[in-house]
């Protein structure tokens, strides 16, 4: 029997009739066509599938669909507001922090969660906050540089969960 899932996705109410054995990652990608969130290791080791759930970055490959009922999910698609990129996205683009791009959505989500809690993190703290996100292309330097650049970039856009926005 299908599961009727009612929750909030990127600030808007969402409803889907899903296979109850699916993870949140599979629901987002297959039932809601939000393919920005990536399928990586599927075992909680790579961070590619990170999304915000009630404001906290979680690994959507480990969240069962039953436990999403009534919760608020923000995916990488939700970082853009009215067609304008989030400062983190701008900095990633400007500084070449994305190469193949597969890890980027998860890293953007983890970085946004960090800046929401700590608007002026040190480089060590950024490194710690992103320690669960693996990148096999860039070697991390540009990624760390881009998050640092976003700290001081004016006009920090808010994600649509109403929690974002600083500096």
């Amino acid at each position, binding site marked *: 029997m299908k599961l009727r899932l009612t929750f909030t996705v990127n600030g808007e109410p969402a409803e889907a009739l899903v296979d109850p*054995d699916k993870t949140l990652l599979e629901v987002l990608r297959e039932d809601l066509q939000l393919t920005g969130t990536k399928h990586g290791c599927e*075992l909680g080791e790579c961070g590619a599938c990170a999304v915000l759930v009630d404001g906290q*970055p979680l*690994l959507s490959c*480990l969240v*069962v669909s039953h436990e999403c009922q009534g919760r608020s999910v923000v995916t990488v698609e939700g970082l853009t507001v009215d067609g304008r990129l989030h400062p983190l996205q701008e900095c990633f683009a400007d500084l070449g922090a994305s190469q193949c791009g597969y890890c980027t959505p998860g890293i953007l989500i983890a970085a946004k969660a960090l800046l929401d*809690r700590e608007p002026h993190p040190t480089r*060590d703290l950024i490194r710690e906050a992103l320690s669960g996100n693996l990148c096999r292309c860039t070697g991390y330097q540009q990624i760390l540089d881009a998050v640092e650049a976003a700290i001081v970039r004016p006009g920090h856009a808010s994600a649509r969960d109403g929690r974002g926005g600083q500096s």
Partner: protein
Amino acid sequence: MRLPSYRYRAPKTVEDAASWLAESPGDTMLLAGGTDLIPNMKRRQQVPATVIGLRGIAALSRLDTREGTDIGAGVTLTTLVRDERIRSKYQGLWQSAAQIATPLLRNMGTIGGNICLDTRCTYYDQSFEWRQAINFCMKKDGETCWVATSSDRCLAVSSTDAAPALMALGATVRLVSALGTRDLALGGLYANDGMSYLTRRPDEILTTVHLPEPAGWRSTYWKLRRRGSFDFPVASVAAAARFDGDRIIEARIVLGAVASCPLDVPAAGTRLAGQVLTDDLIAAVADDAYALAKPMDNTDFELVWRKKTVRSLVASALRELRGDDMREARVRLARHPLLVVS
């Protein structure tokens, strides 16, 4: 990799959870953060017919520091490491929790889940197809322990970081079932068997971890892993001691990841009682721990070397308890400072 089919139930109270678990304890499993169970289900290592999701039970998420400290089993590792009372009163627990996995996983994983963490092994933590190719192992679907083929028991390694730290601090745990409640010392929850590593009955739910007031106690946790940022332990040491000035009144040392359960080192407690921590005493206690550690070839790194590292981890732990500045040594071991986003 898809999850197998399962029935999901979400109780609101511990009582409901216990009575639903009692209906069919043999093929029901408890889901808290999901960071251990969900990957295991995907790899078909654990295939419960029913999953009882505990996240809706508010009582399991309480953290109460009024008399000693009661940590609900559902308290996330992030909540724990962000709690200033935990950090200041139980440094060893804080250090252990801060070194579990990554911030993303700590947002999900719970203290109860880490205590009950499935034992791990090179021959077990693999996809179904990989395990099928070696005709499986004793722990799941097979008969042979590939770590030591003559072994009559599973040699999978205990990989919990929190349990050694909690045991060193004298933790007790509460188990609740439809038949009643029992409290036991955390060490009593474990057995040195990779398959039956918990003495928890299948119908019992771990609900609370209790820590006594830490007056006079200092504690620490040292962990060796491949990647300093993100890995299960391959050897670890938790040490706690109650001091009167420079003199130790009582002490406990517990080793992690060198057996199928956290390993108490009773000789260390005996040797340390009433003593001042000299370099010679530290070396003798490190030898006690070294003699007891029995790592097997079931995880990362070479096992003889892993055993040797126990000696230096114990020495580092005791030096930190003595008050030596060990920050540089920690950075050398982990290759980055130990910090968390508060």
